[in-house]
């Protein structure tokens, strides 16, 4: 089915692909290439030294760990939220639905400052948590909270349409066949929504790895403990170590690219699996 479209009568292939490639190159690819080339002025040894510095490795662990955790939290709660928004009608549903996009729109610095204020030991929620002996701000927990906020819309907005599209017929069919609600969910709905959930998860994860503005306020920034990789890039820059910064940037870029590519392949796979033969 791949080549059916090559013979389409639609015009504009050259123009749009050309323009897309040009604009993409000008705004995204060439600048990113500048960074890669900058980093490539190091020798392999120097490059590895930057990458394998214990502080850098500690920051990877923190960044990836908290991003992963936040993405997991978002997968669970994002799914619950999307489910509630799609399947239930309750007062304030529209309000919550509109609010989901808020983290996109709010400056990350404001989110960071506000979250820090809320979760600080004298903050609204921080007080309660402190009573339970949980400290959020300036720990990895705080970073997770900030990344959860940043990544939440990605999961909800991916899952929502997929959930809305699950054919009611499938659920009805399963139910007439004797499946319990749990079975219907686990065997029918979940597998159908899984590609979308994975997409949302990966987007949230990828976004979390790069996040800086909101994290910087709530993270303690203690070397080896609460220092995220983007902060290390900033520190390298402060020391006029452009090459080192570019090297770290390249690693993060590579990770992002890899993750996004896997999402896109995943989506293509999902489409093929579920929709081939229906056209």
């Amino acid at each position, binding site marked *: 089915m791949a080549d059916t479209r090559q013979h389409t009568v639609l015009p504009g292939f050259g123009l749009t692909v050309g323009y897309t490639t040009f604009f993409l190159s000008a705004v995204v690819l060439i600048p990113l290439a500048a960074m890669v080339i900058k980093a490539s002025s190091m020798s392999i040894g120097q490059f590895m030294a930057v990458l394998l510095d214990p502080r850098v490795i500690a920051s990877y662990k923190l960044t990836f760990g908290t991003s992963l955790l936040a993405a997991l939290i978002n997968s669970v709660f994002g799914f619950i939220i999307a489910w509630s928004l799609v399947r239930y009608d309750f007062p304030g549903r529209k309000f919550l639905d509109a609010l989901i996009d808020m983290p996109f729109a709010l400056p990350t610095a404001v989110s960071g400052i506000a979250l820090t204020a809320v979760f600080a030991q004298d903050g609204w929620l921080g007080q309660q948590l402190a009573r339970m002996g949980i400290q959020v701000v300036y720990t990895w927990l705080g970073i997770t909270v900030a990344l959860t906020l940043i990544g939440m819309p990605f999961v909800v907005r991916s899952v929502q349409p997929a959930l809305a599209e699950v054919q009611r017929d499938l659920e009805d069919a399963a139910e007439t066949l004797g499946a319990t609600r749990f079975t219907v969910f686990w*065997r029918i709905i979940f597998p159908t929504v899984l590609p979308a959930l994975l997409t949302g998860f990966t987007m949230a994860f990828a976004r979390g790895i790069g996040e800086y503005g909101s994290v910087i306020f709530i993270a303690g920034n203690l070397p080896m403990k609460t220092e995220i990789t983007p902060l290390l890039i900033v520190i390298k820059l402060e020391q006029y170590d452009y090459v080192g910064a570019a090297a770290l940037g390249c690693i993060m870029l590579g990770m992002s690219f890899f993750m996004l590519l896997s999402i896109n392949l995943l989506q293509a796979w999902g489409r093929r699996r579920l929709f081939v033969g229906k056209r």
Partner: protein
Amino acid sequence: MPDLLPVPTSMSITLDQITKRYQNTPVVNDVSLEVSDGEFFVLLGASGSGKSTLLRAIAGLTGVDHGRISLHGRDVTQVSPRKREVGFVFQNYALFKHMSVADNIEFALRVRGVKSAERRARRQELLRLVALEGMDDRLPTQLSGGQQQRVAVARALAHKPQVLLMDEPFGALDAKIREELRRTIREVQRELKISTILVTHDQEEAFALADRIGVMNLGRLLEVGRPEELYARPATRFVATFLGAANLLLARQTAQGIRVGATPVSTMLDKPANQRAELRREHEVVAMLRPEEISLAVERESLNSIYLGAGKVETISFTGAFERLRVRMVEADKAAVSADADAENLAILDVTRTQHEQRQLPLSVGQSVAVGVRRIHVLPTPLSSYSVYAVTSTEADALKQHPLLVDLATRMKTRITTQIEPGLGQAGTARPQQPLAGVAVIAAGADAGAQLDWLLQRGAAEVLILPGQYTPATRVLIHWTGEEVRRATLAVAASVLRHVPAEATYLNILPEEESDASKPSGMRELLDARSEAQAVHGLEMRTELHYGDAAALLQRELAEHTSGMLILGVTDPVDFRQRFDWLLQQSPGWPVLLVFRSEETSAPVRKMT
């Protein structure tokens, strides 16, 4: 495969007065039905007729607002779909796309914790049954539409359901595959002897599959019967036209028999005894002529059937096995011919002829022919056509545009004629030659009383009084003032309700002082009325017993509900004018259909003030 057989009982599906509403509008309206064991029942209806909703209600996919559903004697009205043990086949297959064919079919068994060896055996058995052996590991997306639907059928049968429900299972398939799959399903059903209800909008499909067909329209189950019976002797215009082409003609029932136009075409009818009384009353009826029952000849003498009139061939088209002709009746015979609401088609008859007939008498366009009819079926409906009565043409036009009237006429596929009577409502005008035809329609208002008297004087039997303000009726109240008019009122009500998406309630009102003494008889009357409505007219209705003054009670009942219609059987017009004059005054804003019969002979009321 003895283990595939379901446990035999006599009635496997019993529906009792099922009603389902969406936003207060009934989409399934008082449907009762019994499907016996191993029967293949087809629910036939246009889209939006409520047939799919009814099917989903049987499966438990939607709840009902009223009524009971039993499967094999078990009341399942409140049972969740997963415990109803039904098999359901969806129009778009609803296969689980992420599971293989095998997993799809085994789903119901897996859910029930059946062991894998047993599952596999059952799966292979089913795949053989639907002729898909060896497809176990395919994904649904790798199958054609027909194969997918076969898998869906196999899946629905996996857990040995008590009944099989199919919702337009062939809707998404092309003609050839459809036929093939139809055969498969019929075979599977026969082999398993599983009670089946299939929903479709395709009458051909219904004829091909059904042991019995039920036709639904506007949420009501209009008629149920064996295919050939329904085709030959439908009770309603809707079924007559829905099950195939039909020429509907307005005819007159006289003491001598049926007349179409000037031609007496004798009776050829076998009316049930309880309608004999109606036969003696001269009135308008609707006659159905199937196109294949019409014969054509060069001249009247060579017809070997009853002569209907002279006509001219207008178009001829070839459809393979048959030739389809349209024949325009010549001027003289046109007036009383067609019951069609569309004036253009007034004098046109559809005719089909077999190849054999074609060879015997080749015809060409423009040729004059004698038209004969081999068989006429008179519909038992008392509502044949509508005649709007008004003093001026402006009033008549306004009345003709009334939404209820337009709705009724379109849905009944009948016509509305206009009678401008300057003397309407004035006493002393001469009597007409013959009784008025069809239902007389007048506007509610101050003059309505006098106009009603005028009409009654001229032998009107049914009078529809339309208010200016009108919201589509969702509730029809039925009441009669004396037993003499019961049968006629029920017949009229049944006819109306088949064309209005509203719920029917019969009000039996007994005088207050008799309440205790008459209770048993009041209840009996109610039950009698209901069973008669069901048996004779196929009308399902609620019944309510009230005590008090009928006029006052009705007035209160009408005031409580904003949208509705009243069907009132009247025996004594004088008494009616005294007690119910307010009904004619527009005040309730309800359309009122009055049915006048005075004696057991059911002759229309003629005595006047």
